[in-house]
C-alpha cells in the first residue's frame, strides 16, 4: 500500500510517496509554473516511477501548499503549516521550532513532540525575508540561486544591506558592485539580512531548541550558517528540507489510510 503527499509551492511543486511502513518510496519535484494541475500530476508520476507503482495504485493523497485547493487529484487538503510540523518532527524528532522559508513566504512554527502545531506566524505580504529576496540578489549579480549560499561562505567581511524591500535591494547591490565590493561580501550581507528577518519572525513564536529549517531555502548552506549565527542554536537542515511539507502531507495520508483500514476491519 502506498500514499502520497503533494506540496504545491509558489515556486516548486513536490511529491513524496510513502509505503505502508512510512518509508519514503519515491519523490518528485518540478517548477510549479502557471499550470498547477500539470505540475501536480507530473511530480506524482515522477514519484510513482521511483516507487515502482502506477498513479492509480496510490491509496490516499493529501495536498498542501499555497496551490492545494487547485489540485483536483488529492483526497483531502491539510495546511502547509501542519504538514511542515509533521514532517520536521518525523525526520528530526527533537524539533520544537521550525523555520520554513519558501519562494514567497516565510513561516515560524512551534510544535510539540507529536508534531502538532502549538503556535505559528508568517510573512506572506512582502518578499523581504523570503526565497524571492535571495533569487533577486542572485539575478542582479548574474548568479544562479543554487550557488550564492556557498559563495557567501567565502566572504571576508559582511556588507550591511540597508534596504528591506527586494526591489530596492537590487539597486543597492548594483551600487555596491560598482564600488568594487566583492560579491562574496555582499552575499554574506544579503544572507545576514534574511537571517535577521527570520529571527524576528521566530521570536514571535519563541525559539525552542531544536530548530529545523525547512523549505527550498534550507538547502542553502550560507542561509543555514547565517540563521545559526543569528539565533545561536544548532539548525537541522539538509537536502530533504524542501520535501518537508510533502512528507508531512504523506504522513497525514498514511494516518488516514491506516485509520480507514482499521475502521473497515472493525466493521467487518
Amino acid at each position: 500500500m502506498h500514499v502520497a503527499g503533494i506540496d504545491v509551492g509558489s515556486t516548486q511543486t513536490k511529491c513524496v510517496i510513502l509505503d505502508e511502513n512510512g518509508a519514503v518510496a519515491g519523490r518528485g519535484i518540478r517548477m510549479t509554473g502557471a499550470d498547477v494541475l500539470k505540475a501536480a500530476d507530473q511530480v506524482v508520476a515522477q514519484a510513482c516511477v521511483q516507487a515502482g507503482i502506477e498513479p492509480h495504485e496510490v491509496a490516499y493523497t493529501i495536498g498542501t501548499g499555497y496551490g492545494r485547493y487547485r489540485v483536483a487529484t488529492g483526497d483531502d487538503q491539510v495546511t502547509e503549516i501542519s504538514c511542515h510540523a509533521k514532517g520536521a518532527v518525523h525526520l528530526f524528532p527533537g524539533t520544537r521550532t521550525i523555520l520554513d522559508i519558501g519562494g514567497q513566504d516565510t513561516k515560524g512554527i512551534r510544535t510539540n513532540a507529536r508534531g502538532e502545531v502549538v503556535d505559528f506566524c508568517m510573512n506572506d505580504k512582502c518578499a523581504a525575508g523570503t526565497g524571492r529576496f535571495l533569487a533577486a540578489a542572485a539575478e542582479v549579480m548574474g548568479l544562479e540561486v543554487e550557488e550564492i549560499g556557498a559563495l557567501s561562505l567565502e566572504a571576508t567581511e559582511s556588507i550591511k544591506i540597508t534596504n528591506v524591500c527586494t526591489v530596492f535591494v537590487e539597486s543597492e547591490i548594483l551600487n555596491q558592485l560598482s564600488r568594487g565590493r566583492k560579491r562574496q561580501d555582499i552575499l554574506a550581507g544579503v544572507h545576514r539580512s534574511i537571517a535577521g528577518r527570520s529571527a524576528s519572525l521566530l521570536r514571535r513564536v519563541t525559539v525552542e531548541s531544536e530548530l529545523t529549517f525547512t523549505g527550498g531555502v534550507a538547502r542553502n548552506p550560507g542561509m543555514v550558517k547565517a540563521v545559526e549565527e543569528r539565533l545561536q542554536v544548532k539548525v537541522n537542515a539538509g537536502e530533504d528540507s524542501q520535501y518537508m511539507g510533502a512528507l508531512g502531507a504523506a504522513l497525514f495520508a498514511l494516518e488516514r489510510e491506516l485509520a480507514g483500514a482499521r475502521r473497515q476491519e472493525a466493521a467487518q
Partner: protein
Amino acid sequence: MSFVAGVDIGSRMTKAVLIGADLGAADDDKGIVGRCSVLTRFDLAAAAENALLGAVAAAGGQRHQVLYLAATGYGRYLAAERDIQITEITCHARGAIALMPEVRSLLDVGAQNARAIRLLPSGRVVSFRMNDKCASGAGRFVERVSKALEIELEQVGPLGLQANAPCEISSICAVLAESEVINHVTNGESIPNILQGTHESISDRLASLVRQVGLEEPFGLTGGVANNQALVHALEKRLEVPVRLHELSEYAGALGAALLGRQRLHNARAVQFA
C-alpha cells in the same frame, strides 16, 4: 548671462534645470532657460554632470556660466560640483509652488519614494509624510509590473486608460505582484484591466499617504509618475478630487533646487557685501 542650476538626482532619472542668476528673473516655469533629464543608472556623479551639461546646451550656454549648483534627490551628496544640497521635500514643495502656485497639498511620486506634502502659499512645508522603505507605493511598482507583462513603461498609461473592468491586485509587494499579474494573464485577463488594476492598487496606498498629511485642495501631483495619465485617473477616483498637473511636473524638484539655490546665492552675496 550667468545661471543657477538645480539638479535632482533620483533613483531612476536625473533632472537638471537652469534659471537665470538674477533675482529679477521669472520664478515660475517661464524662468527655466534650459532643462534635461537622463537615466541615472549607477554612476550618480556622472548622471548629475550629464544632466547639467544637457541643460546648459539646451540653454545655449557654457558650463562656466553656471555660478551656483544646488543638488537634491537621493543622490544629492554625489554631485561633485554642488555648492549646496537641499532635501527633496523642500525642493519639491518650492518647485511645485512655482509650477502650480494654487496647490495647498501635493504628492510627489518618484521611482523609489512617494512624498505627501502640505504647504503654505510661499511654498513653505507645513507637514509631510514619506514612503521610502518599500516599492509598494512608488513608481517602481508600476515599472515591475510593466516589465513582468513585457510592456514599455511609456505604454502603461495609454493602455491603462483602455481598461473596462480593472482587476484586483491583492499583493502589496511589488515582487509578489509580478507573479500575481502573470497569473492574471494566464487566467485570460486583458492587459489594460491588469494595468489599471495595478494603478488602482498603488493609488490606494498613495491616497492614504496623502490623507496622513491632510488632503487640502487644490491638490497637485509631481514626479515622473505624473506623466502616467491612467494612474492620475485612478488617483482622482480614490481621492475624489481633481488632480492638478503641470507639463514639467517631473522637473519640480530640480526647479525648486534652482530657485532655492538662487536665493542662497543672493543671501550669501548680501552678507559678503554688507
